[in-house]
């Protein structure tokens, strides 16, 4: 039994100290595992917020931009992402998210009372149709054209986020096989 008031006070203080230490560790741990994402070469994430807001909170991710050729000899490739995602800052709604390929708007997503927006890969069917290009046309030997893209999201608090990058397509040319007709 502890009946000294000093001992009780010392015990209480040590519990409070221990809690504070654990809280500090918890905070730094969650920061370490939070929104830090590896940025691949040629991909940039930019967040713009009003000047009076200290920390940018709107965030967006565009995972695994891909260009694939479905049928050899068609010259047609498709661009898609494994997913697109945008999250608004606290108390804000997502207004829109757009997909632009080579400065052409290809998709417009409108928010409806939502704080986050998620678009899976199969949402666009086969993806966005582009020309594959001949080998070397994108500056990479053996590969086809290079396309730039931008994913931009906007929220109600005037915050804007954008993901920009480039995707290289496999090379492919249109091959037309004419029927072989023999002279009579």
């Amino acid at each position, binding site marked *: 039994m502890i009946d000294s008031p000093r001992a009780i006070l010392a015990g209480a203080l040590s519990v409070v100290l221990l809690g504070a230490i654990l809280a500090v560790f918890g905070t730094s741990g969650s920061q370490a595992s939070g929104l830090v994402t590896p940025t691949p070469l040629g991909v940039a994430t930019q967040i713009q917020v009003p000047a009076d807001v200290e920390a940018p909170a709107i965030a967006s991710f565009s995972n695994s931009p891909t260009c694939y050729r479905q049928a050899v000899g068609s010259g047609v490739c498709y661009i898609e992402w494994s997913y697109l995602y945008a999250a608004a800052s606290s108390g804000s709604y997502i207004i829109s998210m757009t997909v632009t390929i080579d400065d052409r*708007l*290809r*998709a*417009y997503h*409108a928010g409806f*009372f939502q704080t986050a927006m998620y678009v899976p890969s199969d949402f666009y069917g086969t993806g966005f149709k582009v020309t594959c290009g001949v080998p070397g046309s994108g500056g990479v030997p053996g590969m086809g054209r290079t396309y730039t893209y931008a994913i931009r999201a906007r929220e109600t608090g005037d915050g804007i986020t954008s993901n920009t990058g480039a995707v290289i397509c496999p090379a492919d040319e249109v091959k037309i096989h004419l029927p072989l007709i023999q002279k009579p």
Partner: protein
Amino acid sequence: MRKIALSFFLAFLLTAAFLSLIRVVYGQGPEEPDVIHRETQGDNIREIYAPNQIESPQQPNISFIDSPTSTCYQPDPTQDVCYINWYYMSVNADPNYMIAMTVTLNSIGVVARLHGFFQTSMYAPYSLFERGFKVPCGALNSSGVPTLGMAYPWTINARDSANLKAANYGTVYCPAYTP
């Protein structure tokens, strides 16, 4: 004296009958439904309402319709063909049954009607409509927004077995077709 009193009484009766007739006829006209909950966010509106024939409850069983991420996309930039779709549509009326949910593109009409079948909720993922609803993308500025194509206002309605209704109203913009 008696004749005057009788004529006054008759005139009073006639006036009362006439006024009540006007009131009956006026009452038969279209009335606004009783809106129970209504929220707005920019141009987006969602509401729950009850027709006037039924008494609107304080706590309706039908929920707001959840219809996030209305989308218009252009798969092939060489064609004036866009597709409109939603990530999903969801509504719950438990313990009532869901009767129906309809999707309307206001300039085109009803494009989908989902029927309830002994179910208290209704969920329609984007894949239910395959690529989505095919629409013309439109030329640049055709919606009044210089960087975009056509604008398509839309409405999603839902009704439960207690005849309570939920509705979402919004607008989706399409990429422009620039040949």
